[in-house]
């Protein structure tokens, strides 16, 4: 594993990225750096622009202005394929796996292993299944032993492991995860966090998006908070307390203010806490 000197260029650097959809300004001059073997946590409320930012990183959208550099060289990503060539792998917030396909088939979508000779080349199912199961096992998913099972039958955490295992297998150097723990229970979420740590240990740079401060604090080395499309804070592990981060994410409002609001709500609704999605 290589440890970078602080002077070497970061694996990925975004400078003054701005984005708008029609007249809606979604991102304003956001700058970020992602370094090898580091987990960058991107925090922010719903609609802050986190997904949009990572879609720019992965070439789904092109920014209206700003600069993207990979290891110091300026690049433009015009498609997800483009960013993949530079070692970026993205697991998007929704989807990313195919529920009605088998584990082995979905692992290799778009990069199918083949055997035999043209024009009778065959999809190598055995190899695909073996690799998929092996990669998931390396991420600690030991209950999945049959690569012919359908992805839709996997739990949320197992699906994340499948997607992350795929990225690792195809040699990603930057792994971008959009809310990988959002739909998961405590145990599954812990498992995904452990997978993130495992990826970092391999020297992969991870961009980890989450709402949950606890999850961020568990794995993050470096944090950035987005508020309404602008970067509100950028700090390293240990520089801010959990309360400070929570306050930041709530849009700068003090937590006390929020608590007062919640109390008022509970009083008004006869003791029922507001439902949390």
């Amino acid at each position, binding site marked *: 594993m290589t440890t970078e000197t602080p002077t070497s260029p970061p694996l990925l650097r975004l400078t003054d990225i701005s984005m708008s959809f029609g007249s809606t300004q979604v991102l304003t001059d956001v700058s970020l750096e992602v370094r090898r073997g580091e987990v960058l946590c991107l925090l922010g409320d719903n609609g802050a622009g986190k997904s949009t930012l990572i879609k720019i990183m*992965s070439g*789904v959208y092109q920014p209206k202005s700003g600069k993207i550099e990979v290891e110091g060289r300026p690049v433009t990503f015009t498609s*997800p*394929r483009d960013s*993949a060539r530079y070692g970026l792998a*993205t697991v*998007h*917030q*929704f*989807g*990313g*796996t*195919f*529920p*009605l*396909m088998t584990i082995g*088939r*979905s692992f*290799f*979508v*778009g*990069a*199918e292993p*083949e055997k035999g000779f043209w024009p009778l*080349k*065959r*999809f190598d199912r055995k190899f695909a299944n073996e690799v998929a199961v092996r990669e998931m096992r390396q991420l*600690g998913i*030991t*209950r999945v*032993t*049959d690569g*012919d*099972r*359908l992805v*839709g*039958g*996997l*739990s*949320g*955490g197992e*699906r994340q492991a499948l997607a992350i295992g795929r990225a690792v297998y195809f040699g990603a150097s930057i792994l971008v995860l959009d809310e990988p723990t*959002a*739909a*998961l229970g*405590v*145990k599954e979420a*812990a*498992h995904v966090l*452990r997978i993130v740590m495992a990826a970092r240990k391999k020297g992969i740079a991870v961009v980890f998006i989450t709402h949950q401060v606890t999850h961020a604090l568990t794995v993050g080395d470096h944090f950035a908070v987005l508020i309404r499309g602008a970067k509100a804070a950028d700090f390293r592990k240990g520089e801010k307390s959990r309360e400070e981060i929570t306050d930041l994410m709530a849009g700068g409002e003090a937590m006390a203010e929020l608590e007062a609001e919640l109390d008022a709500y509970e009083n008004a609704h006869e003791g029922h806490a507001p439902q949390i999605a």
Partner: protein
Amino acid sequence: MTSQDERGARGRDGAIAVKPSAPPRFDVGGLIRRPETGALIGTVGVLVFFSIVGGRTFLSSAGVSSWLNVAAELGIIALPVGLLMIAGELDLSVGSVLAASSMTTSIVSGNWGMPVFVGILSGLALGLLVGAANGLVVTRTRVPSFVVTLATNFSVAGITLALAIALTGSTSSSLSAGEPAKTLLGSLIGGQFEVAVIWWALAVAVVGWLLHVSKYGNWIFAIGGDLESARTMGIPINGVKIALYMSSALGAALVGVIQAILYNGAQVAAGQAFVFNSIIAVVIGGVLLTGGYGSVVGIVMGTLTFAIVNQGIYFSGWDANLASLILGLMLLAAVLMNNTFRRMALSYSPKSKPVEQGRR
């Protein structure tokens, strides 16, 4: 929290080491997981049923050829239509493409007296052209394919009628194809079985290879399963869809050409029944209407089921309209069963852990 979880994970490892679960050779889960299981039950069901009520003639070679011929013509179209459905798209234009191609072949080689292979190639080329147009419009405009191909069906029917009258002064055309075209495309083997049966068998082999053996099948399933993910994984979505539309139109054109040569002519109004019949066959065959799931064996079973009901009714001595009723009910049952089988396939795992979560 972390240490507890670690223990949990190790416990799981231990359980697996103690109890290695080698998948048994014959397992119910594996069977349920296959999209053609329901279709197979349907085909066997109607075959047994009509063998009983249809009497001995139903299983005689005359009886078998009557439904096999129907199955062959329908099957050549249903296979690529099934691929399209797995990719999440519909093609409602196969009816007019069939008529347009058979008219083209018949006019070129009949009315105009050109060599029959020129007529055949013109008919097939016309099909490919319409298919490419369908594919281009669907991928460029993102208008639902239901609407695009319905519009194509009407437009092509209109153009065919107008051109036929302008060119020949009639809505039909006659053609007497010589050898070897007659033997290859429009003859009856043993006086009973259409050569189309052999073309269908070839199509089954090619499409089966494409969908289940080659890597292109993976692309088709991925496109129908989750279009956006397929796109981000670098699959040439537009190219695949255009190719699929061209293949369904080619299937329809081939049947059109076969009919023109077999029946020594063509009519502008032919073929419209194939629009819905192909969809019925595909859905009865276990392909999911919403895409992402299906198999070639299933499509073949669905086609056979359709043909057996469609022809078997004549051997039963009942009102032939009952065939439509039976097919309608089977279609409904198939959709319900497809959903059930799919749910079972999804929740099937060796340890039978209840699932259906994780997607937000």
